[in-house]
């Protein structure tokens, strides 16, 4: 899958591979021994956050789960 930043797709792929392995083998099994993907994540984020700014994508100030605040618990 492509990144919104054309130059970031390879960095995204590297990060995704690391994350998917950690998620399935450690996180879901309750292993809290730490995140081996911080470096690949950092490189990927530097690239993609720059692309987001360049394309003026309005992600700033959008609160996590923001639209959930005005909704009843299901």
């Amino acid at each position, binding site marked *: 899958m492509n990144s919104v930043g054309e130059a970031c797709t390879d960095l*995204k792929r590297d990060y995704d591979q690391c994350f998917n392995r950690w998620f399935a083998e450690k996180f879901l099994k309750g292993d809290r021994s730490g995140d081996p993907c911080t470096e690949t994540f950092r490189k990927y984020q530097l690239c993609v956050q720059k692309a987001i700014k360049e394309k003026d994508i309005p992600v700033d100030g959008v609160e996590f789960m923001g639209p959930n605040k005005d909704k009843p618990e299901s």
Partner: protein
Amino acid sequence: MVKYFSCTGVLKSTWDQVCIAFWQRYPNPYSNHVLTEDIIFREVTPNNCLISRRLMTKTSRAPRWMERYLPKHMASSAYIIEDSIVDPQKKTMTTLTWNISHARLMSVEERCRYQINPENGSWTEVTREAWISSGVYGLTRAIQEFGLARFKKSVTKTMKGFEYVLAKMQGETPSRTLAETATERARETALAAKEKAKDLASHAHKKQYV
């Protein structure tokens, strides 16, 4: 005035498998409208939940009568954010998805809950809710009806996409046949040709008035 919709579905895979598939669901044969996908925020919380934000670009697929209300540069693709919380202790995942572009034209917010199916511990129950609204004076109902109809179609594609990815993960041959793929491609080509013809016709029509 907001249109509300909810439905429940089942994925015949374990909650763990579904969560793993959730991060690998794109691309799949049912997601041709999803152009880009990026994780733009992620953290493990102090109580060991994974919170993430995913940014997606999707084709806008609005009908011509709706696209007229969009500024030219916005017509072709839309930005969507998906926030999620995965709790591996409680075995629940909650997601909230909404569009951050085109929102005045039409806003769609979707909340999903993924948990172990109460009747079968090896299956996953997906509860989905949507809130659809529009701010265009005089067209609110038409836009909401369009939004709801498209949302229902997209729920089917979402579940098929999930089943495809899960089957692939589990080493099975995904059930989407070549014939199905060919039919869908033919339909998409015909639709694109129809849109192109309409476009040319409307340009020719406009030229008469210049």
